[in-house]
């Protein structure tokens, strides 16, 4: 709680709260960064599912997507964290926001561990249902994070 209050009281938070344009532009850039991120996730998941750019190996698509994911992920954080600290007191009490954070943690963990290992492994390493299942779970997790973020507006 004191940490949340400290975030709220920061100079940056105050500036964002009082500015006509800054906070709104941060929100818009956040959505753009999320879009780029989800795009790089989706192309890799489609490939895992056996669709999309099947002419390329799963590993090469996953490696290509990794760079995009890192840059877009940094942009997501750079636009997301200021939004959180600006309204830290409100977000702290929002069950949907907390849900989104847990889902995000699950999606990150899944992507960095199982999904990465399956994506870069030799194509014959696992029966074909494994990469398919991993692609489907990843897509559901990441779209789920996006959806729960949007719903905070309505159901806090």
């Amino acid at each position, binding site marked *: 709680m004191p940490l949340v209050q400290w975030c709220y009281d920061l100079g940056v938070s105050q500036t964002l709260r009082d500015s006509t344009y800054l906070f709104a532009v941060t929100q818009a850039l956040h959505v*753009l960064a999320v879009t780029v*991120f989800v795009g790089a*996730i989706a192309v890799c998941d489609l490939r895992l599912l056996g669709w999309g750019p099947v002419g390329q190996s799963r590993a090469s698509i996953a490696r290509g*997507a990794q760079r995009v994911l890192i840059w877009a992920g940094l942009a997501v954080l750079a636009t997301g964290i200021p939004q959180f600290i600006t309204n830290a007191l409100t977000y702290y009490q929002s069950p949907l926001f907390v849900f989104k954070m847990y889902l995000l943690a699950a999606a990150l963990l899944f992507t960095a561990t199982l999904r990465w290992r399956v994506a870069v492994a030799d194509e014959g390493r696992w029966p074909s249902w494994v990469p398919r299942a991993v692609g489907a779970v990843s897509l559901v997790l990441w*779209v789920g994070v996006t959806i729960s973020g949007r*719903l905070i507006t309505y159901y806090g």
Partner: protein
Amino acid sequence: MSSIVATFEWLEGLAWTTALRESPYGYPLLETSHVAFIVVFAGLVITMDLRLAGLAFNQAPLAQIQQRLLPWQIGTFVPSALTGILLFCVDPLRYYRNVLFLAKLTFLLLAGLNALAFHIKTSRKPAEGWDQDSSVIAMARLAGVASLVLWSLTIIAGRLIPNNWF
């Protein structure tokens, strides 16, 4: 002009648009699905743009990413557009008078024209030869960068609509 306003007034007065506008669940679900479809659609378009511009996925042939993602882009664009049209019908006058909404539509139109121009210009060249053809590579770079900029502006303008600026 006034006939447009009259049509929009009629549209927003209909029973189903009114019900959606006032609903605690229907509207939030409609708007959320609009956002979710757009994020996947534009995400796949931007992924393709990054390849066309030579910024990522460069180990894949130029045409591979572009052609294999097209059905998925169309498949997510259609529901994005349908939910968008529904959202417009729920509150037509508000959008009609919103500069950022009109800006979003303009960027959307330009992005569509850019994609169409690229398809027409490359349609006669076999995909296998794209990576050896410097004119196609240059065209792809130009179309990719233009698409990145236009779709980014579409998303940013769209997200700024509710602030009622201008």
